[in-house]
């Protein structure tokens, strides 16, 4: 059972949890739909940890996603020896950076009493999962070289088969243990998404770039002459409360 379950069933469970759990939380618990920043309580370690971690992990995730989405283009990109080499070295450097950043964040939450007071159990679970993930990633980058190449012929076909609802687990079942852990733990993290502060990933406020600086909200509809709407509270002698138009 185990192989089929791990590689052909569990990923679906994880993705379903991620999507439906995330939607549920967005619509029913929007208040907590963010990362609860503790920079206000501890500033210095937060700077090194948070900045290093976030920038490194985003840069690392991009090739992971590209290899999966456009494997052809990715293969062409790394066909050249030098480019492959640059890619591997950058990846390794970023892995170091991400690991270091996360380590600082973990130490911070362990050692600083103020940061500790706003750390929940789920924060620790998440930090554990992320820690395992980057350490394994680093391990793989170091001991199983040329991952940018073999990733295309192992994990990617497996992921694609998952997307096609025709899981081909033979691509991955023979992989070395660290790689297996890395792949499975990725789905664990996906599953954790709705239950942790990870939800903040989808709150990147891009509209900020385009919206006008000032935000004005009218409780009543403007410019429209109105009669007292039925069934709505009235607060003054003649100012009926109006719905937003």
């Amino acid at each position: 059972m185990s192989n089929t379950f791990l590689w052909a069933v569990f990923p679906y469970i994880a993705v379903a949890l991620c999507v439906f759990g995330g939607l549920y939380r967005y619509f029913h618990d929007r208040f907590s739909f963010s990362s609860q920043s503790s920079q206000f309580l501890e500033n210095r370690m937060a700077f090194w940890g948070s900045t290093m971690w976030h920038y490194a992990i985003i840069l690392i995730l991009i090739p992971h996603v590209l290899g999966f989405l456009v494997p052809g283009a990715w293969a062409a990109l790394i066909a050249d020896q030098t480019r492959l080499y640059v890619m591997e070295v950058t990846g390794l450097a970023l892995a170091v950076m991400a690991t270091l950043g996360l380590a600082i964040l973990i130490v911070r939450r362990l050692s600083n009493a103020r940061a500790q007071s706003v750390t929940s159990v789920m924060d620790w679970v998440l930090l554990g999962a992320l820690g395992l993930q980057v350490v394994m990633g680093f391990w793989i980058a170091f001991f199983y070289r040329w991952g940018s190449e073999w990733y295309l012929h192992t994990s990617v076909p497996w992921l694609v088969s998952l997307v096609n609802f025709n899981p081909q687990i033979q691509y991955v079942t023979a992989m070395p243990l660290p790689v297996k852990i890395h792949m499975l733990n990725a789905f664990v993290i996906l599953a954790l998404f709705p239950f942790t502060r990870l939800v903040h990933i989808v709150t990147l406020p891009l509209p900020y770039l385009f919206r006008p600086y000032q935000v004005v909200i009218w409780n009543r509809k403007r410019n429209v002459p109105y009669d007292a709407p039925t069934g709505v509270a009235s607060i003054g002698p003649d100012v009926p409360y109006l719905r937003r138009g």
Partner: protein
Amino acid sequence: MDIRAQVSMVFHLDKCIGCHTCSIACKNIWTDRKGTEYMWWNNVETKPGTGYPTTWEDQDKYKGGWVKDGDRLRLRLQGRTEGLGNIFFNPNLPTIDDYYEPWTYQYDELFNAPEGDDQPTARPISLITGKPMDIEAGPNWDDDLGGSPIYASNDVNLEKLTEHEREQLNEVERLVFFYLPRICNHCLNPSCVAACPSGAIYKRGEDGIVLISQEKCRAWRMCVSGCPYKKTYYNWATGKSEKCILCYPRLETGQAPACFHSCVGRIRYLGLLLYDADRIQETALADEADLVMAQRRIIQDPFDPLVIHAAKANGITDQQIAAAQNSPSYKFVKKWGIALPLHPEFRTLPMLFYVPPMLPVLGKMKDGIYDSSAVEGMGQMLNSLEKARIPVRYMASLFSAGNEEIIREVYRKNIAVRLFKRAQRVKDISAAEAQEALEIGKTTAEEAEAIFNLTSLPTMEERFVIPAFAREEAIEQSLDPYTHKPAAGFGYREAPARRW
């Protein structure tokens, strides 16, 4: 013309006695929850002093407000893309230590201590970590110039003073200070709103109250940095920013905000102003010396038929227009021109105005005794302006972006009112002298009488002219705010708590 209504406040600083009743009234209603203990939406600071959070006026440090960049305004904090780049770490965020770490005492140790030779003590316990702590600062640590060599002398407004003036201040440091009560200014051009990447902060169209949607706030904390008055606060327990809501649930039911209602010195006035929203940008871009006047210009005459017409076209009710005509804020700010915005050079167009305190030299220290017997005739009073114990330049740094003439004008008018009334009541000044004073103060007998009445004898109804308000939808949904608040703070529908 896009006429809108704005609730506007006036604080008369000559009347503030620094009792902090306002702060307590606010705290008891709104900020007695976990994570908000350190917040004082209303605080009263001693000036000269560094204020709360420490040296909040120093924008080189905190990067709040707007900067005029040619013919454009930009946030001093950061551009939009930069804002997104700083999203993982806000480099200009004040930390809890810039305010103070809130604490309580282990009171039960007093009661449960075993009998012994020593008096039991209650140790201070941090309200953040729950562990014993050493108190290093607290709210109003520098109240009444306490520790002034550390606090008052670091006041950024002193930088503009000459060496001599600073010495002068120091000489009398135990004699002269005044109180500066502060709440959110509910600005016309709020930089807290502009700095918020999530678009969670908004200005209510009907009355201009600035609020933070607790559901949209994503804890980026840019508003805390962006507000030059440091009047948005980060609730570290819920991961949401919160700010003064001008007690909108009270306003919506016709009551003055709690700090206004409870003010012992009766220094607070509240009323509507009508302003032209089309001119916000142009006003915020005025030259520094012209900022106060520009802000007066954007406020429109509520008796002008054109303005009334435009207001009605914008959905402003007759009641609101009547309230604007009756507004004490309109009188103090525009009609009489004796109330000034705090630090207009931050360019947020604050809608809280202050009548600057006069602190005239009516006596001096002689051999350690305060001697006021020298006051005679109006010469002394008028001269007192130039000899004011807190230099005009200091006031100009606070209330007019450095324009000293505006401060002098306000003072001359206020002194004229005093002389005019003194001639009437104490009668040690001749009518001719009083008339001369009125001319110097560019005022008339009627105006002086009106200023005197609204300053010294106003009723509650004259101080707070509150029209019927449009209710906030949030509260509307959650029914009675007073039943709602203990259960849910001012978040709505659900308790403001995180489960994950």
